[in-house]
């Protein structure tokens, strides 16, 4: 608002580091995400004091303590609700929610969905390690069926929640995914998410080195990454594989994988359209081992009004109307019907 004629701040990632010791376990995937976020923010040219990082409770939720911005470490599952209040009070702030799969999908699942459906202008970074880290290793809503954990010694029973599918169903207009190890992609995604008006969600496959080590190795390790993930680019066909010789086709609303050659060429492949909501849902359904898992921007459609915008436009409208009608606080106190005692 007041930044128009002030030179844009120039930052290094270090400027976004708070003075607190980072206390994740050695080898935790969260470190890379922290690096990526600090880097991304340094490049945005937005004054540091405009950022508010908000989290719930969990290992991931320690994130705000490590950012030299404004920050709120709240209570378990409630970050999206707190964040909504922050935006209602001050829509100029750039709000990030960074929290874990347990926090944002288990106890906080409802708040996440409702924030998304309201399209509050903020970015959710979901650090999905498919486990409860801070409470020392219980299964989470994203854990695979059969997962043996402290609370499920014979294996978990419930079907994992697909956070991006749920986000899509709730009408999210910016949906992305990346890997903790891919700091570069995270940087890009954050820049795009901040530019997007409305709720954006970035799922990060994050390795919990202690309680769920290797859970995402099929996607994150050099040897397997090319075969098991596909990087999405708007307007480009979906090609993957270590030799980039495989692709994704769509038929009758179903995605299948095909080998190039043998009568299949690039033109037969699905071309990514990040503005297509139906495609977005199909992409969220691609799951290892049947299909490679999409990384990058699954869906991004600008244009939907944000909750905060709409709130303030109603306020402006109400103010205009009341100014015309002369509706003041004085009038309100008096109401329709008064009498005078002399």
């Amino acid at each position, binding site marked *: 608002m007041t930044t128009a004629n002030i030179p844009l701040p120039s930052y290094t990632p270090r400027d976004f580091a*708070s003075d*607190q010791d980072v206390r994740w376990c050695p080898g935790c995937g969260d470190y890379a995400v922290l690096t990526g976020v600090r880097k991304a923010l340094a490049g945005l040219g937005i*004054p*540091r*004091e*405009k950022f*508010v*990082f*908000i989290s719930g*409770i969990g290992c991931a939720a320690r994130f*705000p*303590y490590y*950012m*030299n*911005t*404004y*920050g*709120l*470490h*709240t*209570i378990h599952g*409630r970050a*999206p*609700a*707190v*964040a*909504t*209040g*922050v*935006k*209602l*009070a*001050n829509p*100029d*702030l750039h709000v990030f929610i960074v929290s874990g799969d347990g926090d944002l999908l288990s106890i906080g699942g*409802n*708040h996440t969905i*409702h924030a998304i459906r309201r399209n509050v202008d903020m970015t959710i970074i979901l650090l999905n390690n498919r486990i409860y880290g801070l409470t020392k290793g219980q299964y989470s809503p994203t854990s695979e069926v059969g997962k043996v954990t402290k609370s499920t010694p014979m294996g978990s029973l419930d079907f994992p929640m697909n956070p991006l599918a749920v986000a899509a169903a709730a009408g999210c207009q910016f949906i992305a995914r990346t890997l903790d190890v891919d700091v570069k992609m995270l940087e890009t995604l954050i820049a795009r998410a901040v530019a997007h008006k409305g709720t954006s969600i970035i799922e990060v496959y994050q390795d919990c080195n202690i309680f769920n080590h290797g859970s995402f190795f099929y996607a994150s390790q050099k040897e397997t990454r090319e075969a098991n993930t596909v990087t999405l680019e708007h307007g480009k066909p979906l090609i993957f594989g270590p030799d980039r010789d495989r692709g994704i086709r769509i038929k009758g609303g179903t995605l299948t994988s095909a080998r190039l050659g043998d009568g299949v060429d690039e033109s037969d492949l699905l071309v990514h359209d990040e503005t297509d909501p139906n495609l977005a849902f199909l992409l969220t359904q691609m799951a290892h081992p049947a299909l490679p898992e999409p990384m990058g921007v699954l869906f991004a459609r600008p244009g939907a009004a944000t909750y905060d915008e709409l*709130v303030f436009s*109603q*306020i402006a409208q*109400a*103010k205009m*109307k*009341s*100014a015309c009608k002369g*509706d*003041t*606080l*004085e009038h*309100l*106190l*008096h*109401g329709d*019907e*008064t*009498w*005078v*005692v*002399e």
Partner: protein
Amino acid sequence: MSQTMTGTGAKPAMPVGAVVIRFAGDSGDGMQFAGGEFASTSAIVGNDIATFPDFPAEIRAPRGTTFGVSGFQLQFSSTDIHTPGDMVNVLLAMNPAALKVNLHDVEEGGIIIADSDEFTPVNLGKCGYPAGYNPLADETLNAKYQIFRVPMSRLTREALAGINIGTKDMDRCRNMFALGIAYWLYQRPIDTTLERFDAYYGGSKKRPEVAAANAMVLKAGYYFGETAELFPTRYEVAPAPTRPGTYRRISGNHAIVLALATVAAKANKDVVFAGYPITPASEILHGLARLKHLGVRTFQAEDEIAAMCAAIGASYAGQLGVTATSGPGLALKSEGLGLAVIYELPLLVFDVQRAGPSTGMPTKTEQADLLQALFGRPGECPCIVVAPATPSDCFDMTIEAARLAIRHMTPVIVLSDGYIANGAEPWKIPSLESIAEIPVSHPGPEARVNGVYQPYARDERTLARPWALPGTPGLEHRIGSLEKQHLTGNVSYDPANHEAMVKLRQEKIDRAAATIPPLEVRGPESGDVLILGWGSTFGAIATAGDRLREAGLSVSTAHLRYLNPMPSNLEQVLRRFGKVVIPENNLGQLRLIIRSRFLIDARGINHVRGRSFRVDSIVNEVREMMDTKG
């Protein structure tokens, strides 16, 4: 015109001091409107009034059933009154169900005016009267009450014969016939009501024919009183002496709405209200949603937890976060409230209490959330708790709560209840200039000490911490729900620091006592009995005290509007009386605190009936206690 009508009753008018009238009928019968009109008119002619609506629990119960009965009770008086009254002097019963449900509240010898047309076998059956029985014809009842049978339905239709509206619309005017009779009986002018018809139906609704019909029926009822020779007397309730000023009628919920808009102006902060609908608090959300032009933003959250947390976020980001709920919602908000306490942010939480436990009786009143408000959070988690005493006091206490929250950087719980939320009384509209500004300050970059900002540094006097706004360059800081180090606010597990912080948070709340007014005593400053109350029992207690003193007993009353911290003179006041009696609409929650704090053998008068307190039950029980020693 009405002037003439009022003045020229053929019947002699008997002066009476105060009257309790209740309009009762089906939910669709317009009883709230009729009662409201009677109340307005009575206020305008200068009576003191107190009203209480009694809604059915169902949205629209089937017509004619007892559980679909809607009532509106009003006391109007030539003296200062504080309650809508215990026993009903006049009951207007629009159908058998209304009579059945309300009969036991009518005083012996009281007047019952019933729409005799509605006492058909079918209707009598619907509300469970045995076949062949009609209460209007019951001799015992006729001996006990003055029952007037008026064929209101027929007379209404007759009055509208030839008017071009449907029978449904015609029948909807029945309530105006009843109101007309009531106006005649108590010599009230009918013009404000007539004007309302014009304004409402004639105005935006564009149905002038309905306005005309209502007017005709109102007059018909009035003339019926005048001419029917049915009623032996008219009554006159003289104006009550009041302070000069401009008045309006106000309910507790509405007073909170007006107060929050006033807070926005006086603190120069927007109010960010995050709520989730729940009876009987929803009107606060509804009312505020219409005040976008006055610095009020409203947000209907997905549940109470989200509402609480959004309010916290709003306060953190620099506006005043507010939420409102009832008991079950307060339970859900309790974890979030703990967060607000450890954050030390200003915030208002309204609990419009209703009858519990659990869902309980949502449309009925109770004051059984005091201990929940004080203690319903894990750990040592103190905040300020206040409770308005009357509908209009909701205005003052809301502003007071905001002042305390901001000054002491703490959440404040305001305990209202269904009785004062829906009840109404006259309110002298304050001039805006007479309301003090609410000072707010936010630190700027200069607040850093040696380049470091300390979010948990404290004001020496109040112990409040600074309210730094995100967006302020240089004050970037992180606060969390973990225990925090004194001054820096960083996470700390240090044992001594924890103990110090626990005690600091408590001390901060205790120190707020310095800025709250001393407890006032109504009646002599010392004596045999002090009746101590809090919240909505004020009216009943004050009236009971007055009556007991009139009867020559050494009884005073006092009312706690600040429950935590309590006024500093409380102990002195209590010790000046031989006995302390605490009437509560619960099993003794304030009593528990008072006994513990002062080791005084306070006794309770405890009724938990989902209703407001009756004056006579206090009078009687206090008398009994004074008779028996101990």
